[in-house]
């Protein structure tokens, strides 16, 4: 969030459990975060499960990144 305040586009990869935390922090810092929510947990996953998380997150990131780039 510090990065966004400095003008860097900084999408946050957050697991679902930590989303409220990030939202609360964003509110306190008065920024609107770009959030990509990944199902919790990430730690302790095997390779296949991790690949699924990556696919899901990439599916959300690519359009978000394109939109940010075009918005410039």
């Amino acid at each position, binding site marked *: 969030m510090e990065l966004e305040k400095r003008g860097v586009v900084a999408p946050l990869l957050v697991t679902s*459990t*930590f989303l*409220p*935390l990030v939202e*609360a*922090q964003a509110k*306190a*810092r008065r920024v609107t975060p770009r959030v990509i929510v990944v199902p919790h947990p990430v730690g302790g996953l095997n390779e296949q499960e991790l690949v699924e998380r990556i696919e899901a997150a990439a599916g959300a990131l690519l359009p978000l990144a394109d939109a940010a780039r075009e918005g410039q």
Partner: protein
Amino acid sequence: MSEAEVVELPGVTEESWHEVAWERGWGDGLPTVPPTPERVAAALEALDGIELELGPVPPSGLVPTRESFAANAVMAGCRPADLPVVLAAVRALLAPEYNLHGVLATTHPCAPLVIVNGPVRTSLGINGGTNCFGQGTRANAVIGRAVQLVTTHVGGARPGSMDRSTQGGPAKYTWCFGENEEESPFEPFSVRRGFAPGESTVTVAACEGPHNINDHGSTTGEGLLMTIAGTMAQTGSNNLYVKGPHFLVLGPEHAATLHRDGWTAESLRERLWEQARVPVSKVSEENQRQFEDWGVQPEGELYPVSTGPDMLHILVAGGAGKHSAWIPSFGATAAVTRAVPERP
């Protein structure tokens, strides 16, 4: 105080206050004292001429006012005289090295441990003797609770949203005790940390609840050290790979035995750094890799606890009996000591 700080609760009585406070998300689940402007003003008299000197409290980033700070102390059940100790503790929590933001957001069960030294222990009746970690002493209960309420309320670190502790711990309700300086064979903990004898101080660190060290059998320092080192060598503690501070709180009887056999607080630190180690064979291979990711390598076939003898803080507390306690920490925190402010 500003109008924004005062909340009108029409129809609410002292009797119905607890329900209303609970509904608003105030408090820790136990009943609190309604922080009426009169009570807050009375509490603040103890801070006359003392600046709060408090920065923003994470995660909200809000800076408490004198009134909202005192309101939390009132809610916790503090007497006015308790406020300078609460203030010293909150100042210490806000030191960057304490890492309050990380402490509040972690899944680890750490709580703000508050250790009091100096004459204020006697004047406020802070227990450093029998059952000092437990229930039954007003000052211990309300000071520790007030510290926690400030971060919960002003910092907004409510369980479930900001406070993400997996299981939490009972110490998160309140955890404050005094050192038993009177029965300690060593210099007071605060003096060893550079404060003047006779000066009242508060030391905080983000810690787990105490881990008992029972040794009724050993009659020598060597014997006791074996039990103490064995208790500290835990595979599941943050101090093994996140490192950071940890505390050995000796019961007065254990302390006396160690002192009789020539041990000082300093030599105990050195010895336990060498002796309290976890064999690599006791750590799963997966977890060894996780330690490696954190830059932690075993020394030979052993993992040391934390990074060196200076990370172990030794003090004396408790009453009669053959028990001591090891207090592991969150790791990414520091022991921070602040003087208790006095009215000019």
